[in-house]
């Protein structure tokens, strides 16, 4: 099987790709056309890269590539899924400052940006540089995307957080909301095995067996290839599936850059002259796609935890007599504000796919809400929530109804207290 999404589902009615508009977004052309701007901003980009100080996540040439995408696409919203130390946060903020009209919403568990990077960046940029940024310590799975996307009309999405659950949120929750507006999705950590001399060999490594296996075993050298996509992320399985069902081409930045700059060495020479090897490379290791200009109908997956549930049980919480209830967390990172035992008030059939549903409003700092394992120390699941004016719904999968771990509300990574109002609590299945 040579994976070509063009031929998958060939005999099954689907969208008519003949009606697709010609490709509207040319990442290689954007790179070339932004060379002057990148060269002019090279000094500040270099300073920002130093302030973030985590170039193994994103090289300077990748900074320049994504900077050129932002400048070329001209979004009014950049939605960043996964921030880490904040390479992309910084470069997109700088692009937003350059464009003058874009907002950046960044979602990540990590507190590194808030606790370390932002203060270093603040020494380089004007204070207003931060005005466009909403960097939340929050869970990508529980964010309110209707609220985030609001009336924005041109959205650049960076998909740089991994795993099947996040893939499901991107493909099943965010993409359908982007259909009515221009959008462009960048996916990090996908290598094009057609370029750059990527080895065919397994090199004695075992088969890649999924991201969870990789994290568990530390076998980070095992990689998987699906067609031209090479990665260590589950995400490419979900993308290959989505691509096949929707007869949708996944774009390769490596391929596009090679196509333009190998095809016209003069352009490559100009790039090298303007940007040097530091900011110019045809090696990208990221992929992209967009539904903009494509005819529908599209197929989207359902999102676990956001589906309609048939059954619901009130939940009895020891020490909590009524709702709404308020928990106050300490100004100490990770400190527990509450740890409750709980149970559904009616019998729930064994073996059902059950979720604990909370409606909460957070004021102050970021908090975590999670379920402990039976040992009372490890979390089976937890979600980070950033302060918002409106209440949000949090869904926690309940792995084992016969062993219900404590429900915990705690301070997140930054030592900032919070008031957490719990409006509703139910078990649904």
């Amino acid at each position, binding site marked *: *099987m*040579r*994976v*070509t*999404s063009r*031929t*998958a*589902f*060939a*005999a*099954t009615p*689907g969208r008519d790709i003949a009606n697709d508009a010609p490709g509207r977004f040319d990442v290689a052309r954007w790179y070339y056309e932004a060379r002057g701007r990148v060269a002019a901003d090279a000094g500040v980009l270099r300073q920002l890269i130093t302030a973030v100080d985590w170039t193994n996540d994103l090289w300077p040439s990748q900074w320049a590539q994504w900077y050129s995408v932002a400048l070329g696409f001209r979004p009014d919203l950049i939605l960043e899924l996964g921030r880490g130390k904040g390479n992309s946060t910084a470069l997109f903020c700088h692009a937003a400052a350059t464009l003058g009209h874009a907002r950046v919403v960044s979602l990540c568990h990590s507190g590194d940006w808030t606790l370390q990077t932002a203060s270093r960046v603040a020494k380089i940029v004007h204070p207003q540089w931060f005005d466009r940024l909403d960097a939340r310590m929050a869970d990508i799975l529980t964010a309110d995307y209707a609220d985030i996307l609001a009336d924005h009309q041109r959205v650049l999405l960076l998909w740089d957080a991994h795993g*099947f*659950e996040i*893939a*499901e949120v991107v*493909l099943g929750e965010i993409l359908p909301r982007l259909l009515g507006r221009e959008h462009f999705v960048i996916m990090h950590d996908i290598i094009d*095995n*057609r*370029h*750059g*001399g*990527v*080895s*065919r*060999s*397994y*090199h*004695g*490594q*075992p*088969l*890649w*067996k*999924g991201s*969870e*296996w990789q994290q568990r075993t530390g076998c980070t050298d095992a990689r*998987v*290839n*699906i*067609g*031209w996509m090479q990665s260590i992320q*589950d995400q490419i*399985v979900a993308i*290959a*599936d989505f691509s*096949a*069902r*929707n007869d949708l081409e996944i774009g390769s930045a490596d391929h596009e850059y*090679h*196509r333009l700059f*190998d095809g016209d060495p003069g352009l490559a020479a100009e790039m090298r002259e303007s940007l040097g090897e530091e900011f110019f490379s045809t090696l990208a290791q990221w992929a992209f796609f967009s539904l903009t200009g494509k005819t529908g109908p599209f*197929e*989207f*997956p*359902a*999102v*676990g935890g956001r*589906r309609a549930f048939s059954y619901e049980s009130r939940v009895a919480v020891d020490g909590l007599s009524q709702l709404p209830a308020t928990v106050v967390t300490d100004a100490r990172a990770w400190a527990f504000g509450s740890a409750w035992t709980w149970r559904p008030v009616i019998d729930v059939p064994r073996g059902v*796919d059950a979720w604990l549903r909370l409606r909460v409003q957070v004021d102050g700092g970021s908090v975590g809400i999670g379920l402990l394992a039976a040992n009372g120390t490890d979390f089976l699941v937890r979600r980070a929530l950033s302060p918002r004016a409106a209440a949000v719904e949090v869904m926690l999968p309940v792995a084992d109804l016969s062993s219900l771990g404590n429900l915990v509300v705690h301070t997140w990574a930054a030592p900032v207290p919070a008031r957490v109002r719990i409006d509703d609590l139910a078990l649904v299945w």
Partner: protein
Amino acid sequence: MTMVNKPFGSTPGRDVALDQPRVFDVGRHYYEQRHRIHEDAAVLRALIGAVGWPNDLTSAQWAQWYSVALGFAPDLVIELGRGYGNSTALFAQAAWRLGRMKIVSLCVSGEWASMVAPRIAKLVDPAWFANVDARRTDILAADYGEIIANHQRVLVLWDAHGFEIAELVLGEILPRLSDRPHLVLMHDISDNRYAGVPRSYGGHPLWKGSRWQQKTGAWDSRVNIGWMNSIQDQVIALADFSARNDLEIESADRDYTEFFAAHPAYANEMRQQLGEEFFSVIGHWASLSLTGKAGPFHFPGITGWRAASSRCDIVADELPRGAAEIVTAAVPWAYASTSEWRPRGSPPLNVQSWIRCRLRVQGGPIGVSLLTPDGRAFVQSQVASSTSPMDVLLAVPDLTRRGRLVIHTWDSPMAAQVHIDDLSLVW
């Protein structure tokens, strides 16, 4: 400018221009075996009835694999995954027909021996079973060097799933087969170009791997990798292997649909002779073979006990040194031997090690199990039943806290003689 469109297009690899035409034409063999299928329809029908589990394999799939076995005419069939024994029975019938085919069937399940074989025994000559070595064993522990031995034409049915078994097939079995004609059939892979599978997710969540599926019971979620539609992790491993080796994974759905679309008269003959019962152009299976393909090939590394490079003897207080013989009682789960044990040597404590027990079993299925140090539960338990020498592997969680090693009856009330040829620790 180089336009590179194939995976690894700019990386040196095998030269596909040197590949010979396909070694085996699935569509043509279905057609060419129509008379034999027709002649054997009654016995096939009786066998299908005896197995009594048609939702694992439809009658048309029986006929398709029967035609593959008769057409390919292997001298060895390795069956990975047996379940109730649909494929075991059809391959045994093919072996009976051909007269020179051995079937080694590996599976942990016991339905074949306890339920299906007795029902089949009422239908067939006793010698029908002589070609079948149906072992209850862990597929991951089997000795494929011993199984493949000097066989020259091997058909593998890959009908047990998960990444570990994929690694075994692609990294252990295929390299052993690459020097002899072989064909690997893979069940539970539909071709979304032909099999009429819906594009829609159908309101289901993303497929998130076989382990997730087993945990959540979300069986309606399926994954599509190119044309392959499945619920098995295996298709990810196959796509990877295919890309690295520039190797076509063949689709039975496509082969049958296109062959019979190109020869409508043949399709009519098939319908007339076999009826809808035994003729369908949809198979929901795939195949691969390296036979006739130019190398070099890339195979994944092997993990677990197969990667072990050191061994030492194990001393067990209830087992005599060297070959030992134990008799288990005709009582399910009854213990026949419970041994304290220790490695004769000083294996490192910070690496994974395994107890490797090489044994033969005459009689009912037995278990080889490792108890927790307090003796209250099994850490790991493996079933074994074969008169051929076989390995049982038990991972040792902590060499400093060793639970006892138990030889016991398995789930059937059948006694057995267990010949232990070797007991080692490997790491």
